[in-house]
């Protein structure tokens, strides 16, 4: 983490809960999420679809459809204000101004009926009050910034005239248009080809050095997170199960779900002989209309104890782990893994 | 032409996905539950039922002979003896409304039945055969759809001669292309489903796949369109009768009653109000029922 502890965090989420009303009852998508984000910090949030990773940031900024979506409790402090208590009009000044967004699918997330220039100019005019000429000049600079060649000729083109990677660059240009303090990238590389993914990740890292904004990078792909984040946060069934500095979490996972995610990643650094078979996590996430009372991952977890099924463990400092490495687990994963390894050693 | 010509508003062809799901057991019950949960659909169903009952039991329900003239009741104002008043030759308006339901509902049902029984097989062939056959059928429906529904019906009625039977025939033929196109689109969607692929791979002959595997899955969409088309057909029959090309006097028909009534609007407004209201209620009921069926059959499309 960057920044000293005396400065207030850029973003302070406390006990955020979100649900969606459906015919089958309320779906509890986010169940009490708390964390902080320092200025300039990059936080990677990992989880499968339905983990609440995207929903909770959209809910913070009033971007979930309401109804059926509903923030049921919590506070989100940003720049000295609780975003959840702000009237829509004031929240609009934050969205696209102080907080920029990059969404998943650049094909569907850009307006097919508006030229690229019109879409980049929009936040500049809304938040910075620029006139059309100045905003257009700025839009061109932004296309340069996201490394789109021949910007002059491309400003008046429409999204369908751009390639997938270029469209995502345009999305990033829109997200960064007003030099936000925080950029939220929601599955920003998921829809792209692998080579393009790497380009976009590299671009965002460069821009972060140039602009210095904080980033929340939401993805289901641990690999992307490893390359870009200072801190990683693992979410499951609307809760944070583990969170910590990126190296510590990868080296020393404390939650069985994190371990499962790590084991499902191919490790290309080892030689062919050293590679292990990829493992998958069996079972399916719980029905969020009736979340289990205890640890939501317990039903799929071979290491779960009876207490896991009965009571949700709090998110707290993992014993013996790096400072700031938090975990929600009743079991001691390193000890269990050591015992397992010892048993396997005896019975080959 | 710009695409599909489905006569009624808001009838997007339902996506293929739910089609497979209707095969699961217990879904008929679930469908019935969803239909009942929509008050407007229930109202539509009840009114449609009541109107049909009224038409069927007209002999019992109607207080007078619908063609019997009564010189004491010429343009008679509504009274206890004649609650809906009397018409230009003293016939009881209420009795004519009751008997008129036969012409209106009969025309609606018969013409749509004709349109479905012609359109369904043709659409099935077009959608399943594809190629030249499909192309030829589509061009023909394009051409038929280029002649507006009522204009075609009027032209047909003109050449066939004016009568209720010919009006039904004309409306049914005019509505056929809608069902051809709907069936074809549905067949193409269903034929792409995996269970049809599976049926094909185990060696089912094409006719069997079309009749056993595809047909049952497109019935719901046809049913919705048929219900909504009955509403349109009732208006069409009333329109033709209003123009004098449908039910011939002295037999009662709501449209024909309105035609006469417009000449006596200031002296006997009840002659115009009751038949018009009857058409409106019947059409509204079928529209409510059709909308309800559509929503109940495809919960994901619900608004």
């Amino acid at each position: 983490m960057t920044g000293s502890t005396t400065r207030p965090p850029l973003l302070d989420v406390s006990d955020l809960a979100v649900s969606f009303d459906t015919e089958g009852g309320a779906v509890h998508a986010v169940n009490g999420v708390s964390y902080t984000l320092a200025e300039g910090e990059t936080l990677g949030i990992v989880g499968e679809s339905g983990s609440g990773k995207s929903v909770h940031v959209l809910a913070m900024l009033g971007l979930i459809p309401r109804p059926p979506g509903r923030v049921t409790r919590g506070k989100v402090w940003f720049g000295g204000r609780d975003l959840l208590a702000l009237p829509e009009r004031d929240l609009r000044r934050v969205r696209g101004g102080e907080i920029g967004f990059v969404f998943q699918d650049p094909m569907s997330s850009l307006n097919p009926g508006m030229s690229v220039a019109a879409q980049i100019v929009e936040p500049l005019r809304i938040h910075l009050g620029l006139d059309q000429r100045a905003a257009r000049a700025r839009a061109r600079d932004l296309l340069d910034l996201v490394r789109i060649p021949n910007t002059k000729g491309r400003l008046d083109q429409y999204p369908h005239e751009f390639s997938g990677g270029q469209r995502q660059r345009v999305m990033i240009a829109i997200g960064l248009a007003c030099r936000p303090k925080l950029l939220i990238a929601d599955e920003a590389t998921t829809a792209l080809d692998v080579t393009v993914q790497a380009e976009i990740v590299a671009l965002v890292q460069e821009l972060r050095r140039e602009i210095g904004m904080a980033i929340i990078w939401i993805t289901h792909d641990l690999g992307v997170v490893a390359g870009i984040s200072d801190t990683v946060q693992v979410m499951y069934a609307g809760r944070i199960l583990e969170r910590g500095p990126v190296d510590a979490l990868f080296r020393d996972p404390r939650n069985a779900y994190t371990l499962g995610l790590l084991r499902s990643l191919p490790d290309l650094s080892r030689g062919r002989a050293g590679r292990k078979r990829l493992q998958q996590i069996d079972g399916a996430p719980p029905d969020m209309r009736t979340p289990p009372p205890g640890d939501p991952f317990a039903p799929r977890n071979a290491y779960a104890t009876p207490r896991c099924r009965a009571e949700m463990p709090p998110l707290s400092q993992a014993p013996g782990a790096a400072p700031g490495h938090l975990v929600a687990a009743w079991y001691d994963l390193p000890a269990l893994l050591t015992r397992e390894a010892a048993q396997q050693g005896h019975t080959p | 032409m710009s695409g599909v010509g489905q006569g009624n508003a808001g009838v997007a062809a339902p996506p293929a996905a739910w089609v497979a799901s209707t095969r699961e057991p217990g879904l008929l019950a679930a469908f019935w539950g969803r239909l009942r949960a929509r008050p407007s659909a229930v109202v539509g169903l009840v009114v449609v039922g009541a109107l049909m009952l009224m038409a069927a039991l007209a002999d019992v329900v109607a207080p007078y002979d619908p063609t019997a003239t009564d010189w004491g009741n010429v343009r008679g104002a509504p009274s206890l003896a004649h609650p809906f008043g009397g018409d230009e030759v003293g016939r009881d308006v209420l009795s004519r409304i009751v008997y008129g339901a036969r012409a209106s509902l009969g025309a609606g049902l018969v013409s749509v039945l004709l349109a479905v029984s012609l359109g369904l097989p043709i659409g099935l062939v077009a959608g399943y055969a594809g190629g030249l056959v499909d192309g030829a059928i589509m061009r023909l429906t394009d051409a038929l759809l280029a002649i507006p529904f009522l204009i075609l019906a009027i032209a047909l009625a003109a050449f066939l001669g004016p009568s209720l039977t010919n009006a039904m025939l004309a409306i049914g033929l005019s509505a056929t292309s809608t069902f051809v196109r709907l069936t074809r689109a549905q067949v193409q969607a269903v034929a792409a489903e995996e269970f049809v692929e599976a049926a094909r791979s185990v060696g089912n002959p094409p006719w069997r796949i079309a009749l056993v595997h595809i047909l049952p899955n497109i019935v719901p969409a046809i049913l919705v369109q048929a219900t909504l088309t009955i509403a349109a057909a009732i208006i069409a029959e009333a329109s033709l009768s209003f123009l004098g090309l449908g039910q011939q006097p002295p037999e009662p028909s709501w449209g024909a009653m309105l035609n006469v009534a417009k000449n006596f609007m200031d002296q006997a407004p009840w002659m115009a109000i009751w038949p018009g209201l009857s058409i409106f209620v019947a059409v509204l009921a079928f529209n409510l029922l059709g909308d309800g069926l559509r929503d109940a059959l495809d919960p994901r499309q619900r608004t």
Partner: protein
Amino acid sequence: MLRFLAQRLTLAVPTLVLASMIIFALQQLLPGDTATALSGEERDPEVIAFIRQKYHLDQPLPVRYAYWAGGVLKGDLGESIRLQKPVSELVIEKLPVTLELACLAMLVALALGVPMGILSAVKRGTFADTLANGIALWGLSVPNFWLGILMILLFSVHLGWLPASGYVPPSESLVDNLKAMAMPAFVLGNAIAAVMMRHTRAAMLGVLGSDYVRTARAKGVAPLRLILRHALPNAAIPIITLGALEFGQLLSGAVLTEQIFSVPGFGKLMVDAVFNRDFATVQGVVICTAATYIALNLAADLLSAAVNPKLRRA
């Protein structure tokens, strides 16, 4: 754009040709001897012989069609037996009246239907939405000839604000023309407005739930701009395409509306021709209606291409 236009035109031509064949084939439905039937009320053998010769009735059907279609292409729609006038002359005389009525009705339909559809999509699930849907259902279910009668009863008979019937050409007095057309246009537009409302609502709901509208909201775009600048232009394409199919409804409805309000247009020409057994006129009107419908649909295709950047640039 040009390629798109060419593609649409090549589809329209065979459609029109097939439609003309169907219309021509209607003659075959006439009971008894065609020449006798075509001569209408007349039973004069000379007239019958003239008709037999004029329509080449002694020739096989395809040959007769070729003669007829050749005439139609040269603008010869046949002769009105009743009015002793070329059908083309009658059509040219009446078509502008119906087109004016249709355009005014479309204007009414758009002015009522589109804002109502937008409102009910934006305010989905509220009372306003329910109300708008209720109005649309009313519009779809009320027979327009009945609505016409009720409006005459109210506005002409009771209030005396508007003329119950009659037509004043706009060249004579635009104000009187519009006064005479107000009720017919509203009656005719009413049902189309309901359809437009439903199409607009569905299209707007789809667009409002799209990712790019979420992007716009994430940029801080205000609601009004969100609806008018981001959502509506994208919803316009399906509204235009589906709305164009309603031209048929418009032309059908015009027949009844003209009958009720005694507007001397296409519809009235056709109905009068039907009763006079003036079949050449019926055929002429139907083929012109089909051509008008196809032309209006082409115009709508062009319009939707113009609002769609993908087609505009192609």
